[in-house]
């Protein structure tokens, strides 16, 4: 019997604490596979954020550290400056990156830190219980926006990939989604591309991943994927926002 | 108690007040004395004023701050003199740039040294030498360090690139010393 699928060597053989239908598992897998396929597992160092992925370091079979809330890009800067030859990744959610950590992500990108950020955008705070995130869609319900996000009171969601792409230090920026097998494949390709940009020493690379959070959205896993497809993607258009590797060709 | 000198230098920014103090401190260090140099602190830092305190001692220095116990006061302009002349203790020495400072009501409990350092520096060809002229006068009369040690300090503080200025600075120190000595001959 031939093996058609096995766990990436970049993933630990442990149960995760993620809820059924959560997209974190998929993104963990494609990140681990990307590193494995690129031969980078032995030199990878990942910042776990505060949020649902705080335990990600236990699920990866490469180095990890738990960063303070929003500060993963700063901590990654410290690691990368000490080890410029290693592959340094931050894995951050939307509350972590786009709310409390907006300052750190913007400046790490502006400095052109040679790190790769995987940004999990599911439009909600997961770990603390479904509060409104900077990326919560207009009208979308949250425990701190019980009637749905009212933009006249709560302001507007932030399109982070577009924002990052305006910075000269950011060399590769793409938004992907993990709502279907085809999109998952594209997401993995984007992560690989971002890691290549880091390995080439070009500068900061960033992949925003639209993800599902069925538990805090109050949806079934299948409905949650439909929500990503039908509600999130229209607000957060997929695609490459910036690719400086193509410049000059 | 062992010998301790507390020199308070004050003037306008750009008059070389801080470097005057640093040269003195450096020279004292080269003579293996204990020394501290403190820049201006407190509200007196404002308004383009510059001042520093140098303490030179044979023993470990406690307070590096000068309040009203300076043994030597060096004043490069009128504003600094008016503001700080009482920092010098009774029996101390006050050196003033007599080109810029005039006092109708001087203190009677200190010795004054009125040195026209601007005029002397101008005669030497460079107004920027005024602080060195003053330093020459101060060091000659207050017996702080060996005069040659100030030139050694000059090399250390300003580096090899400025060594070509040593002869003119040496002359400035000597002229300052001479002016101070002449004051008493008159």
């Amino acid at each position, binding site marked *: 019997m031939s093996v058609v699928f096995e766990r990436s060597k970049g993933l630990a053989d442990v149960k995760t604490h993620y809820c059924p239908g959560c997209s974190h598992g998929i993104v963990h897998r494609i990140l681990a596979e990307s590193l494995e396929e690129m031969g980078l597992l032995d030199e990878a160092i990942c*910042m776990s954020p505060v949020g649902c992925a705080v335990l990600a370091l236990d699920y990866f079979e490469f180095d990890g550290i738990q960063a303070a809330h929003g500060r993963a890009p700063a901590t990654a800067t410290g690691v990368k400056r000490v080890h410029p030859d290693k592959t340094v990744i931050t894995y951050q959610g939307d509350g972590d990156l786009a709310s409390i950590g907006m300052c750190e992500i913007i400046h790490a990108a502006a400095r052109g830190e040679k790190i790769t950020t995987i940004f999990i955008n599911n439009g909600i705070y997961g770990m603390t219980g479904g509060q409104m995130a900077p990326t919560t869609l207009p009208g979308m319900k949250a425990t701190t926006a019980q009637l749905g996000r009212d933009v006249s009171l709560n302001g507007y969601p932030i399109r982070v990939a577009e924002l990052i792409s305006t910075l000269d230090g950011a060399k590769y920026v793409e938004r992907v989604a993990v709502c279907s097998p085809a999109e998952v494949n594209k997401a993995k390709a984007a992560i690989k591309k971002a890691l290549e940009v880091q390995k080439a020493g070009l500068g900061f690379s960033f992949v925003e991943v639209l993800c599902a959070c069925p538990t805090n959205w109050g949806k079934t896993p299948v409905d949650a994927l439909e929500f990503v497809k039908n509600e999130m993607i229209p607000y957060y258009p997929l695609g490459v926002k910036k690719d400086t590797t193509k410049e000059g060709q | 108690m062992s010998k301790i000198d507390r020199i308070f230098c004050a003037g306008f920014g750009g008059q070389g007040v801080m470097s005057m103090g640093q040269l003195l401190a450096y020279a004292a260090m080269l003579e293996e004395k204990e020394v501290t140099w*403190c820049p201006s602190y407190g509200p007196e830092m404002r308004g383009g004023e510059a001042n520093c305190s140098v303490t030179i001692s044979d023993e470990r220095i406690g307070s590096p701050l000068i309040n009203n116990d300076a043994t030597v006061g060096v004043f490069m302009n009128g504003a600094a003199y008016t503001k700080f002349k009482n920092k010098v203790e009774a029996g101390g020495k006050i050196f003033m740039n007599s080109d810029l400072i005039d006092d109708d009501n001087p203190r009677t409990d200190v010795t004054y040294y009125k040195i026209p350092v601007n005029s002397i520096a101008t005669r030497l060809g460079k107004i920027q030498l005024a602080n060195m002229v003053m330093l020459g006068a101060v060091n000659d009369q207050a017996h702080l360090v060996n005069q040659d040690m100030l030139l050694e300090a000059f090399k250390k503080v300003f580096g090899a690139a400025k060594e070509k200025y040593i002869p003119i600075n040496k002359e400035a120190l000597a002229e300052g010393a001479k002016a101070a000595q002449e004051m008493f001959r008159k």
Partner: protein
Amino acid sequence: MAKVLLKGNEAVVRAAIEAGCKYFFGYPITPQNEIPEYFSKELPKIGGAFVQGESEVASINMLYGAAAAGARAMTSSSSPGIALMQEGIGYISKAELPAVIVNMMRGGPGLGGIQPSQSDYHMCVKGGSNGDYHNIVLAPGNVQELVDMVQEAFDIADQYGMLVIVLADGLIGQMMEPVELRKPKERPIQPKTWALTGPNGGKPHRIYNLKLQAPDLEQDNIDLFKKYAVIEKNEARYEDYMMEDAEYAFASYGTASRVVRTAVDKLRAEGYKVGLVRPQTLWPFPYEAFQRKNVKKYLDVELNMGQMIDDVAIACGDKNMIEFFGHTGGVLITVDEVCEFAKKVMGGAK
């Protein structure tokens, strides 16, 4: 090495580089700006890195990363900046990473002022971050001691896996004194096998800050405090001045202690039996230094409203034995004021 005349802030940089510090992360704040400025010039020359963080918050988290990566690294700031760093200070303390912070204190609270002060005794010695933790706090009294302590701080940090704070003030940072770089005493330092380097064919390195199970976190804290007990036993340090027959002992550290030292000389010349106990470490606090049989009163002199009093009281066991004098907000004390205060306390006792 021959002595050189150095400003305290520049001396910090020389000492740190001598100690093998190759990484500095910091944000501008008066009165310590010469430190980042000088580092930005020197570190690229030795293959290290200087990063001007976007804030103190970012800077301390960069330090967290660099320390986790196994490097000798530091940051510096002044009081309001150290307040902003408290989050990262807690993380570094929890992760037991070796790192060094220099704090050139200024007047507070809030934005406060920019003049020299000792306003952060509580924040740095008692802890300004959340949770049960300690940092080692060294209190230099002059520029030479600042140099010695900065060098030693890196070794102490590595020996114990601790964050070491060199707690000086704006005056020590700005003043110049002759200094020489000397080798600190040898300390047992283990290789950093835990450092983030990538697995390199071995097991992944994981540096944690979260413990979800309360009993696990409690056990971590108990273990942490076992380590602290060793440090309290080994590292508390102080200096006596004229204490042999002193009946009144000043308690003072840093810049304040220098003014007090001169006051002791003056009072001794007048026949008063006074001395000075100068803590050189504030945590661990040298409690045994304030348990003198001959001493009638401890005269606590600080550049704040009396933040060390509690520790002196714990040490001598009687808060009525302590009198306090100080200035706050950046106002410096004078020798005459200290003498006057002491004479008032002593009455006619000579």
